[in-house]
């Protein structure tokens, strides 16, 4: 009897809540067959089995939180994964879940390409977290000849942000160690050679296999970050960390603190008379990272809540994952970004005529694809709206791709799927993709990947009503456009009041990088473009 463990689910996903168990005890399951439905931070994933066998025991239940690598079923008659099939197993369990939902036919190509990688393979450094492109190896926790388990810690890596333990993304025998302590390793770089392993590149390779526009996004992000690294080499980092005298810490410890971006003067020493060890620095760093909530330091718990039941009956409900994530993300954005919101109204009388003329009975085109198209053009015209701020390095990251997120209201809360490379899509294609995306979001089928890589967000509340509102910028983006409901207004033109359909627009932007005048210019440009819809080429 063998344990079937929860496989890797994707980048930054360590756990999920079981929403549905799709098999029962006694079922014969096949590799690749969906066995669980799992809710993670933003997406509901179907988890396929990584082995054949008969379910003899189910170790989890619906509603339970399950961690990656945790045993979920006991299986009998497990077909031990021979080398050849190992990769197939792997390719079906992580990111491919997402794409298999999107398009079933891709499976064939996925299998054939995956099954070619047999025997000794490279284990690459998995993604360590957002904005972490590399790290310095501080410890290698395995040696040649060790047999690795997935999830087992194999390396200790120091990044700019923290000292991290890196878990293996695969199983197999360590044949060769390609790095050494002190070396700087890039995410995706080969670190070990593994024999008899499950396809090593659990996280990186499958992403590359997906050849939809999203793959382009991923690679361009990588380019952006590598360019950033290159430029950093030329301009030395003048750290603002002061030189401290009389600090009871060895030179190596002081250097470590500097590398981690920590002021050694703040680190409490555990040694005799306050001597600071490297462990103290690491512990301090860890504590900083955990105590610094993603919500930018505003801790809700700072003020106690009143006893609401004094005024009547109340009930408490746990936040679902989407709500938690939304709360965390938006308070971080709100606390990090100095917001300014610019309002304007755009005359969409002409646009409405055009929109209605091309909307058939079977196909309805909303105003959103037009706005998306105009925004994409505006972002090229005003590149600071397609940027991110790296305050740590005092750099601005400009993106050469245009991905626009669209906020979708679902029964579980707000979901923002991202339309990739919209500048290369026609309005009709955008419309189709938007419809499909919104549908997937409502069916909880949106994948993590589909929600990443956005450059700008549009939130259209026009279907509900209202005039203006102040949307919160979707960090690390720098601007968001709020669209409200259009209404007929008397507009004075040519000596008369004419009824015109006016659409209120609200543009919030990051004032650190966008000046007020630029905000006004951007929104004016957008309005003027929308007002003259005939300049928009439907097929471009």
């Amino acid at each position, binding site marked *: 009897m063998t344990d079937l463990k929860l496989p890797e689910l994707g980048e930054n996903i360590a756990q999920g809540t079981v929403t549905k168990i799709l098999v029962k005890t006694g079922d014969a399951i096949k590799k690749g067959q969906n066995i669980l439905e799992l809710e993670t931070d933003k997406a509901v994933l179907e988890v396929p089995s990584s082995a054949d066998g008969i379910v003899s025991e189910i170790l989890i239940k619906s509603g339970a939180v399950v961690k990656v690598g945790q045993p979920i079923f006991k299986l009998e008659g497990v077909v031990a994964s021979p080398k050849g099939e190992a990769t197939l197993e792997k390719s079906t369990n992580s990111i491919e879940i997402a794409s298999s939902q999107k398009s079933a036919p891709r499976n064939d190509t996925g299998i054939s390409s995956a099954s070619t990688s047999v025997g000794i393979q490279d284990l690459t450094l998995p993604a360590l977290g957002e904005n972490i492109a590399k790290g310095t190896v501080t410890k290698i926790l395995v040696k040649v000849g060790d047999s690795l388990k997935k999830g087992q810690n194999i390396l200790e890596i120091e990044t700019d942000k923290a000292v991290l333990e890196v878990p293996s993304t695969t199983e197999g025998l360590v044949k060769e160690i390609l790095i050494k302590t002190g070396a700087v390793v890039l995410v995706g770089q080969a670190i070990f050679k593994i024999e008899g392993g499950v396809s090593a590149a659990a996280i990186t390779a499958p992403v590359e296999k997906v050849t939809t526009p999203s793959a382009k996004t991923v690679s361009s992000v990588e380019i952006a970050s590598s360019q950033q690294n290159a430029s*950093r*080499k*030329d*301009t*030395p*980092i*003048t*750290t603002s*960390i*002061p*030189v*401290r*005298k*009389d*600090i*009871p*810490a*060895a*030179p190596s410890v*002081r*250097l470590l603190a*500097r*590398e981690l*971006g920590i002021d050694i003067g703040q680190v409490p020493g555990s*040694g*005799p*008379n*306050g*001597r*600071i060890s490297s462990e103290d620095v690491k512990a301090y760093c860890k504590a900083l990272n955990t105590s610094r909530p993603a919500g930018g330091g505003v801790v809700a718990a700072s003020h106690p809540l009143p006893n609401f039941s004094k005024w009547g009956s109340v009930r408490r409900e746990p936040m679902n994952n989407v709500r938690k994530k939304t709360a965390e993300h938006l308070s971080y954005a709100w606390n990090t970004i100095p917001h300014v919101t610019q309002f304007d109204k755009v005359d969409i009388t002409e646009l409405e005529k055009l929109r209605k003329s091309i909307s058939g009975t079977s196909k309805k085109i909303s105003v959103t694809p037009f706005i998306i198209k105009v925004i994409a053009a505006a972002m090229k015209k005003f590149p600071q709206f397609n940027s991110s701020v790296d305050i740590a390095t005092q750099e601005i990251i400009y993106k050469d791709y245009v991905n626009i997120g669209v906020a979708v209201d679902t029964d579980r809360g707000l979901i923002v799927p991202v339309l990739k490379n919209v500048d290369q899509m026609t309005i009709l294609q955008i419309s189709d993709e938007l419809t499909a995306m919104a549908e997937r979001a409502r069916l909880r089928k949106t994948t993590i990947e589909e929600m990443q890589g956005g450059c700008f967000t549009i939130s259209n509340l026009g279907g509900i009503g209202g005039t203006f509102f102040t949307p919160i910028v979707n960090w690390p983006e720098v601007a968001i456009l709020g669209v409200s409901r259009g209404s007929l207004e008397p507009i004075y033109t040519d000596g008369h009041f004419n009824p015109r359909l006016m659409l209120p627009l609200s543009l919030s932007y990051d004032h650190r990088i966008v000046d007020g005048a630029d905000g006004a210019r951007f929104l004016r440009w957008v309005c003027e473009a929308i007002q003259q819809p005939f300049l928009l080429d439907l097929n471009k």
Partner: protein
Amino acid sequence: MSTPIQLVVIGAGPGGYAAAFLASDLGMEVAIVEKETNPGGVCLYRGCIPSKALLHAAKIISEAKHAEAFGIDYPAPKIDINKLRDWKKSVVSKLTGGLGQLARARKIKYFQGEASFINSNTLKIKKADGSTEELSFKHAILATGSRPAVIPNLPKSANIWDSTAALDLGDIPENLLVVGGGYIGMELGTAYHEFGSKVSVVEMTPGLLAGADRDLSDVLFKRAKGMFAKIMLETKVLKMEESPKGITVTFADKEGKEFKEEYNKVLVSIGRKPNSENLGLENTKVKVTPRGFVEVNDQRQTTDPNIYAIGDIAGDPMLAHKASHEGRVAIESIEGKRVAFEPQAIPAVVFTDPEIAWCGLTELEAAKAGREVTISKFPWAASGRALTLDRTDGLTKLIIDSKTQRVLGVGIVGVGAGDMIAEGVMAIEMGAVAADLKLSIHAHPTLSETIMESAESFFGHSTHIFKPKKA
């Protein structure tokens, strides 16, 4: 113009060549501009190394003389000055030649000549053969070092030496006046004394070796009084004139009373000045202080982001080992590493006889800063090893934070103090407390035990010293 070179180092002293070599080892394309044929700088050509060669010779003479005290009598030595000079030169050329080979092995572009900045990205190199070349660079490191300071309005005379001339060992004068009681004057004065000169020292301040704690310099002073013809403290040099035998010097003592003496040679060793002139720094954004030092930040980057400065030109203390360390910091900073020049202790060593060495906080500095410290001393008279050397003129002291018991400074005077100070540097850098030094076993019989016993003394119970209990 061709693509800019990644790094050019101007001046190949111990700071410059350390920086250039590290940069090359890290994969950078590196050029050096240096006046001499080989790297080495003042340290190797006209400083640390030749002076130590001469001091070694002097020490042998001194020890042979001293051996009489325990029954070993040598006849007076015959000094072949040409052979001695040649030997000193061979030491220098061996070392500098070796550095030249190391530079070539690393494929470092070596320009023999002088550099000046045209702008923040371009150097003009006046080569030794008279031709000029422009070199564009991404980063430059200024490591041009320093030169002996001069007294204004002195007559031009071959009988007035600076340290360079003294190291050339042209002759051994019968009478030598050393102007300035700093480490250079004391070291060279010691050497010439052993070679047979009658040496006098004149110093403006009330003590020798400014910066060193008085109890340490006193030990040297006592011995120097026996060696030197005259030590004139708080005395000014008013005038120097050429005279039949050499130079006549007019002094004024602290009461202002003037007097004259005649010497064959006068060695002026009143300090050193940074070489920040004639570098075209005005064509860059580099800022120079009124004293001639280049302003740098913790990464040794100047106010011009492309240009770094290390060593003597970047500020006191003007020590070779500080320069090398700064060179490595600068290179790692250029590489994008987060580093800073943040030593807790820079050792200073005076190679007199006895040697004086100190690091970290001195007692003087502690008093000035009003820091609560405990001074813990161990006189070498209680050291078995010092007795076997018949050199009990020594003292080891620790400057300890009274509250945290951390070792903040170490000072040593005595034979071999220069080598012993390394333990002090290590202790301070590692944040050691007095107990760490006390509890580390030191080999017997060595002079290093004096450090352990100083630490014991902090706790009031040094083995070889009896302290009556306070009532």
